[in-house]
């Protein structure tokens, strides 16, 4: 970050007797993966610029348990979930914005039954809220006239029926939003879900991320937009595999918004 933004933690905020408007759930990718960290910083820039009073859990954050659950390890999932719920409830967290559709889905849909009831939104939904209530103003800027295609993350789209928020944000960039043949409810997975991110794929005749990148390349975009750090990795690899990385960028919606708003 050019000018360092102070990222407050829940612990610090609580110690000073304050409570944030929203908790930013960074997620494991967003915390550790070098590429995903850029998305995290973009989200922070947006929150900061819109004067949203936010905090992160920092070292108190832990995996939501999503990959463990999808891989069949329900014990590990619930152990992780209960720990997180205790932390979140300890801070009386009410609203959460996540940087990852997997965290979003798990926190929103699977935690309530275990005692963790929060108002959970994905960062693209939060961006839409900020635009709608006038806090975030964007003019096309760097993306004006660019051809952008949006790859629907499974756990945002099919999993939770969120299709419009990311698209609305992209349209604010004065860009040409082009849809792939398989999009929205019919969008093809990038290949990372269901804990596939952490293992080699089974034997087949093609990698799923290559198949999906081919969908994207078919519409000759300047930018492939995503809303998920895993999708980002898979699509970036796909673009590299096609040796198109000089012409086609893979960016998160948050990164584009932050850049367009000159943050």
């Amino acid at each position, binding site marked *: 970050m050019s000018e360092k933004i102070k990222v407050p933690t829940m612990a610090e905020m609580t110690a000073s007797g304050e409570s944030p408007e929203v908790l930013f759930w960074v997620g494991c990718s967003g915390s550790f993966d070098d590429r995903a960290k850029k998305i995290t910083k973009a989200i922070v820039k947006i929150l900061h610029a819109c004067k949203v009073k936010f905090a992160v859990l920092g070292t108190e954050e832990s995996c939501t348990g999503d990959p463990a659950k999808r891989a069949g*390890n329900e014990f590990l999932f619930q*152990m992780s979930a209960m720990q997180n719920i205790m932390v979140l409830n300890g801070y009386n967290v009410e609203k959460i914005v996540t940087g990852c559709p997997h965290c979003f889905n798990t926190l929103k849909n699977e935690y309530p039954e275990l005692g963790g009831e929060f108002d959970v939104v994905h960062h693209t939904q939060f961006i839409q809220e900020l635009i709608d209530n006038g806090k975030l103003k964007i003019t096309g800027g760097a993306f004006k006239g660019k051809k952008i295609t949006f790859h629907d993350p499974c756990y945002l789209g099919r999993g939770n029926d969120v299709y419009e928020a990311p698209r609305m944000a992209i349209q604010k960039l004065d860009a040409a939003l082009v849809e792939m043949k398989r999009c929205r409810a019919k969008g093809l997975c990038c290949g990372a879900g269901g804990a596939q991110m952490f293992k080699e794929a089974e*034997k087949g005749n093609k990698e799923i991320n290559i198949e999906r990148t081919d969908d994207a390349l078919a519409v000759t975009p300047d930018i492939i937009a995503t809303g998920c750090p895993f999708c980002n990795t898979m699509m970036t690899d796909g673009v590299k595999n096609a040796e198109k990385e000089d012409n086609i960028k893979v960016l998160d919606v948050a990164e584009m918004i932050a850049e367009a708003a000159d943050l």
Partner: protein
Amino acid sequence: MINILFIILVIGGFGLFAYNVKRIVSNIKLGRPIDRTDNKKERIRTMLLVAFGQKKMFQRPIPAILHLFIYVAFVITQIELIEILVDGATGSHRIFREALGGFYTFMISFIEVLSVLALVATFTFLARRNLLRLPRFHMDEMTGWPKLDGNLILYMEFVLVCCIFIMNGADEVLHLKQHGESYNFTVSSWIGPLLFGGVEDVETLSMLERVGWWSHLLMVLTFLNYLPISKHFHIILAFPNVYYSNLEKKGRFSNMEAVITEVKMMFDPSADPYAEPPPAPEGADTAPQRFGAKDVDDLTWKSILDGYTCTECGRCSDACPANTTGKKLSPRKIMMDVRDRAEELGRHRVKNAEATDDGKSLLRDYVSEEEIWACTSCNACVQECPVNNDPLEVILELRRFLVMEESKSPSELTTMFTNVENNGAPWQFAQADRLNWANED
């Protein structure tokens, strides 16, 4: 005499059907309980939209319209079937005609027009299956019986429609000869004279009409009893299957009850680990249950109902990212495996009331580990299914069994589990470093 033969045939036909339905219901009940009786309004709405209204079929408009022809023809022909049943039992002939008058002519004409449309659809579907060779009709699981089944249904539909027109056509010519007037049914008023106009002999015509009438009845009874061994059973099961479908967000996976109890106790400082468990409610199954599913009786009854409802259209596998890229996983096969295994286990349970284990299981004897680990849990199969099946739930339950009962998972996933457990992240990074990004450039 002929009335008695008719009554015996009809009762026998419906009786055999009822017997087979009962058998299938008890196979479905092999599954674990799950409560899907909530939210009745939403369930009925979904059923009207998806099952009755075929909403999801219309994702692909051309096959949807053709399918609709056969579907509407099937539903509407039942009105004629009622008349056939009354006529057959009482010896009357077109008993509704007098009472309904002009409406009767309209109704039979409507049935005839739809039958012609259904015939067009039947031929198109046969061509699509056998000449166009759509890839999804020729995947590995679509050989042998499933392939024959798909074609047999269409052949039977063809015969059924032929019977209707032999019956109505011969009757039309007979009526012209005997009463000097036409029935004025849209199709048979011209196809009748075209086919049978040359037949002078009233007795031959009368016999032709009877042949059509009896063949129609026999075909209906045959078709009815063919349903329970065929994917065509979906014409009935689609309705309850959609009614009981999952109404939650697709991304939400169930939280296992048994694990909730265990984990909550672990987190409760006042819990006494040596305390006696609370007494089980009267009549409850006290046998310890498996985590996840090894066999069909570990799945919920809804998953088994899914299997029986599956119409093997393959839209799920067509949309599956793993299948599309040549992996062994095919969600359709998972559904067919559940059904076939339920049939097998059901037969075994009937023969051996005592022994409940036949030494086989859904996992490994039907579904391989390679298949279930290829799933990305993307929900494309669930999204596509025109009858709201959920192959993903079966895959998840099988994974749960492998991981929690057998500690068997691909080694990279075992590493991921260890990392989540020890570091709170799927990768080997320390939790203490989680905020480092905030201080990096």
